[in-house]
């Protein structure tokens, strides 16, 4: 089974809802947190399926707990040039709208009131969730001329868009016509970006095999680390580990996860802490509020759990001992 896209929803009680896009279908799996004294365990359950919801491969999907519609929603975009909004718990499609071009990525805005999607020619559009039924694709809110949008994040009054022409653009949101900064320097397409919880730093991965650390306020490059010398290496930042300075990075087609420490005061701001070998190739992941790192692999539906708290404490102790 090949997973095209995955989305997560963290619930207050520690449960995690996963939505997997497998070709034209969507599969919903819930991981229920079971805490017995000191032990933590998860119980997995398939809570729904939406088979053949699209007529072509699904490129991206995104989950949301919408307070407006009082439902858990999933929005999906596909090569069939449609964007669909569906209800997760009843696994029914609510609305479907046409796009002019194939869309590559879809995300909910931070306040969950808008859906932002981008297509393969670099146009980014916005839909208000409560007016989804009346939506018609018209003028884009952001344009990356003739580039494919590879990642999109909307957080804290800003919207971050990265494209296949090595550019990362930081624009205001919702006034996307005012660009705050560009983060320029990658030599190949930007694969994915992750942002620290304080919205001060950005780490980007790229087809040039490096990860780069940027300061959001100025767009300046703080540090760059080449992870793989081969020409076809693609680095994929997975997640920023909550309020800490640790980030998890994956390399395409490599069965490992790398943990880096971000230290802005140091001269070498990105420092590799450890490489953990896995038996699958991670392509996506999530950090829970318990500081657990979940990794999703592209070849299998295997999830692996890491105790990050313990690792962090060990590292901090080591550093303190050295000092």
């Amino acid at each position: 089974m090949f997973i095209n896209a995955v989305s997560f929803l963290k619930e207050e009680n520690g449960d995690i809802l996963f939505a997997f896009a497998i070709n034209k279908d969507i599969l919903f799996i819930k991981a229920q947190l079971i805490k017995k004294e000191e032990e933590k365990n998860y119980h997995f359950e398939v809570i729904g399926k939406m088979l053949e919801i699209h007529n072509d491969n699904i490129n991206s999907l995104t989950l949301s707990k919408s307070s407006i519609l009082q439902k858990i929603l999933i929005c999906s975009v596909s090569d069939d040039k449609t964007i669909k909004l569906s209800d997760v718990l009843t696994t029914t499609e609510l609305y479907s709208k046409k796009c002019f071009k194939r869309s590559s990525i879809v995300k909910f805005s931070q306040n969950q009131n808008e859906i932002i999607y981008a297509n393969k020619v670099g146009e980014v559009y916005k839909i208000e969730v409560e007016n989804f039924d009346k939506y018609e694709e018209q003028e884009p809110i952001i344009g990356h001329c003739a580039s494919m949008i590879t990642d999109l994040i909307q957080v804290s009054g800003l919207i971050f868009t990265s494209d296949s022409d090595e550019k990362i653009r930081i624009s205001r949101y919702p006034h996307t016509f005012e660009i705050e900064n560009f983060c320029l320097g990658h030599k190949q397409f930007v694969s994915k970006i992750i942002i620290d919880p304080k919205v001060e730093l950005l780490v980007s991965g790229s087809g040039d095999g490096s990860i780069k650390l940027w300061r959001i306020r100025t767009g300046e490059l703080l540090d760059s680390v080449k992870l793989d010398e081969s020409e076809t290496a693609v680095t994929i930042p997975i997640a920023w580990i909550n309020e800490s300075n640790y980030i998890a990075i994956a390399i395409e087609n490599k069965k490992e996860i790398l943990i880096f420490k971000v230290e802005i005061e140091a001269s070498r701001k990105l420092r590799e802490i450890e490489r953990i070998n896995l038996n699958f190739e991670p392509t996506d992941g999530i950090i829970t509020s318990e500081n657990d790192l979940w990794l999703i692999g592209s070849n299998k539906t295997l999830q692996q759990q890491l105790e990050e708290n313990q690792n962090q404490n060990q590292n901090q102790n080591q550093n303190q001992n050295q000092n």
Partner: protein
Amino acid sequence: MATNIQEDIKNNSIEDIKNNSIEDINQDSDNSKQIQRKRKLKPFHKITTHRNPLNDNRFPEIPFCPGELDLVSRYPYYFGPNYTEPLKPKIELADIGCGFGGLLVGLSPLFPNKLIIGMEIRDKAVEYVQERIQKLREQGINSGSPSQYQNISVTRSNCMKYLPTYFVKGQLCKIFFLFPDPHFKRSNHRRRIISTTLLAEYAYVLADNGIIYTITDVHDLHTWMVTHISVHPLFERVTDEELESDPVIPLVRNCTEEGKKVAKSNGSKFLAVFRRKPRIPYNY
């Protein structure tokens, strides 16, 4: 550079060169005498007018970020060993689609403390302008003004895709779009250089109160540009009264080959100039 053009001319038929021999176009900038040169530059009609900016090519000359733009080779006078002033001038004016460089040559003496760059997607046109600037600089050196035309240069680039890689935020005080390709067909409208999405990038490279100049002889394109820029929240129209005192306007109208062509055929020129509104600080 010189030998490439000479070889090109050799490859063309001798008929072409005889029939289309041109006087050196630098005579206009000289004002006084007409200088007839023995070596002819490549005839205009051999350089194609149309180019699709949406093609995927990233030319090697395109920098990956503004710090990588090679200023030393483009402005050797200011970045060479003889320039002893501590403050180097910066690129503050950009001619998008500079064609054969007419505007660059006209602007050069007006802004002696600023650097001006022409951006052009057609490599043959870029070669032509490089040749032209080189000759003008040599003339200046020979006549005792070594700084003449040292503040203009040209680069091959695709501005629709890569403009922010050249300039930092707010670097430019002026940006020119003279007689842009109209792309008449509706399906080609997305190739037009002025569009709502690109205006955000132009606003990004322009300083507060920076000016955007547009001129065209195609009324439909003029309406398109005026509508799109006027509606954009970051631009406001500069009135004709304010333009009367702007020394750049006569150059915008008359300096380029395109402008002269339009004048010869008694066409109308539609000018539209806009100011980039000052940025409001943003707390997020």
